[in-house]
């Protein structure tokens, strides 16, 4: 069925591309404003009306952010946290998800609902009792606190469990008959088949830790522990704010993630091999 596309189909395609490019431009407009502002002088960032062309163009901002501010420390801390939290979430989450998805035991569904239930509670409402508990262990003002907070969330478990449910049981059954233990099945069969979900979980956890503000605000007091978001916020001084530098920092903060996402595309859209299995 590889007939050459008709003229209508081709022009439909072209129109589609036009629409997509226009939509992409629209979606990126706010980001474009961020980049433009990052190249402005401080007092020119917020004006009425908006000035779309910076005049003068202050390239120095991209130097100043590293020199004047402690961006290196912030990036390092944010990287440490993001990597650690992501690794923990993905591992423990996918491990636990297997138990929920593929194993049957009493109370499973109720426990799972409990997990989802905690997602339903806004974090600000239990953040103080949680802070008091973690402080009593002496972990406030350390990066460990943030790692502990984020690493054992219910989100990862939920995402992976749903994905596992779409993997046919026949695959694990066959492996079981072959003598593979449950742990073996999880590692050898299920995990390789869930690469798209794992990739999604990885990037989502990474991004949410990378951009987290309230957590570091409450827990990290020392300047040497600050994350990027905390550091950028410090540019909002009591009597003035370095808006241009904040935008510079925000632009720099977005780029690594966009790059990881762009380069890692094939993991998100890799199909699973289901040859030989009838649905």
């Amino acid at each position, binding site marked *: 069925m590889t007939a050459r596309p008709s003229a209508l189909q081709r022009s439909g395609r072209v129109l589609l591309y036009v629409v997509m490019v226009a939509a992409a431009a629209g979606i990126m407009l706010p980001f474009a404003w961020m980049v433009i502002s990052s190249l402005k002088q401080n007092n020119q960032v917020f004006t009425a009306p908006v000035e779309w062309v910076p005049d003068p163009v202050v390239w120095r901002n991209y130097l100043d952010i590293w020199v004047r501010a402690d961006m290196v420390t912030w990036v390092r801390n944010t990287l440490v946290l993001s990597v650690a939290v992501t690794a923990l979430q993905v591992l423990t989450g996918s491990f636990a998800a297997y138990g929920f998805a593929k194993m049957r035991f009493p109370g499973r569904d109720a426990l799972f609902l409990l997990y989802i239930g905690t997602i339903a509670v806004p974090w600000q409402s239990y953040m103080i009792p949680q802070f008091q508990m973690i402080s009593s262990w002496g972990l*406030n003002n350390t990066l460990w606190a943030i790692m502990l907070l984020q690493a054992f969330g219910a989100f990862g478990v939920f995402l992976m469990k749903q994905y596992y449910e779409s993997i046919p049981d026949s695959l694990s059954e066959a492996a079981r008959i072959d003598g593979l233990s449950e742990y073996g099945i999880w590692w050898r069969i299920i995990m390789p088949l869930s690469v798209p979900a794992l990739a999604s979980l990885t990037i989502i956890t990474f991004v949410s830790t990378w951009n987290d503000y309230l957590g570091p605000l409450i827990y990290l007091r020392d300047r040497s522990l600050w994350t990027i978001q905390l550091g950028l916020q410090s540019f909002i001084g009591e009597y003035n704010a370095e808006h241009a530098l904040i935008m510079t920092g925000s632009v720099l903060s977005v780029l690594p993630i966009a790059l990881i996402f762009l380069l890692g595309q094939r993991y998100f859209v890799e199909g699973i091999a289901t040859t030989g299995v009838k649905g």
Partner: protein
Amino acid sequence: MNRKIMSGVGLAAVASLALTGCGGQDEPAAADGPVTLTLAGWDFASTPEFETLADAYHEANPDVTVELKEYPAGDDYDTALTADLAAGAAPDVFIVKNLKNYVTFTEGGTLLDISDVAAELDPETGGLAPMAIDGATYAVPYRQDSWLLYYNKALFEKAGVDLPDGSWTWDDYAEAAAELTEGIGEKQVTGTYLHSWQSTVQGFALAQSGAPLDGGDFSFLAPYYERVLAMQDEGSQPTYATVTTNELTYQAQFGTQKAAMLPMGSWYIGTLVAEQESGAADTFEWGIAPIPQADESTTGTDATPVTFGDPTTMGINSGIDESKVETAKDFLTFAAGPEGAAALAGIGITPALIDDTVADTIFGLEGVPQDDLSRFAYTTHETLPENPVGPTTAAIQTILGETHSAIMSESTPVDEALAEAEERVANEVG
């Protein structure tokens, strides 16, 4: 606690710490040994007042070191400090940044009773008297900003409008703003600029009308709101909608000469001077005038203009080590007294105690306007609090904040919004 047990424990602690070779930070020291006090402050890079006070005190008392602990700036300060207080991790001395939280901190038992410190201070110290709750004081002011009127002399000359002379009422102000806008005749330049905070309208209304905040009647706000809405419609100032959605900043608007006048707190003096020096603001001649008054009775350089401003106060953490209490109280007396005031004035901060030395120091700084009216405006005023100390202030201010955005965005007419606010206060505030 039994002193014998305490000193016994203290000795054992010192011994064990010495044995393990750790530094003895928490060992209870005698009152005349070296003491370290921890002080909570914010944004040390652009707020040098904490360091100044710490250094000045250390110079006067060499065996006391005031160690600064940095907290986030802005509203986040309260959130972070609250968390630390709840977990018992807050420093020995901390600033009560937002006066409306003072009562809560006190009720929660986080502040030590320092009525003895308050009694020792000069009764003229700005903002001191209202800090008393049932006769006891728990925090003392070390700085007290007041709201003044800043004006751009160059733009006034360009528009051919008479400079302020200290005799203005709000109507005079509105008239001047309209004339300025027309006289300057440049797009995007207005006669005045009103920032989006609720205090820019409500602070003046509360102070100048003399009405109580918790009286349940907000009609005292009506004339002030009607006036600013009229000015907004007239084009004398950027609209609230523009200010908020475009995130305009008062520093940029006045500093880059987009507004000829600006009602703002006295802290802006230091900022404007610094910005003119660094080039972030244009170079132009400016002055300070007393804020416009409600009526003629308090105008003119023979009377005392009424304005508003909250003191920034300092209190002692009730969880402080007992041996450090005396030192902490002494530090507070220093900070709120003439020595602290002199140190603060040296960096352009308006202390709570304004005497001639302070005024001379401030006006001796490079870039500060030297004319008589400016000096009068800075030194002579009756400053009433924006957030009067009381158990319902925080709740009422939240409601009034929502009222402010409803009125200024012209979503709700003034009378309707105020009536709604009164209803909500009756319904929600105990």
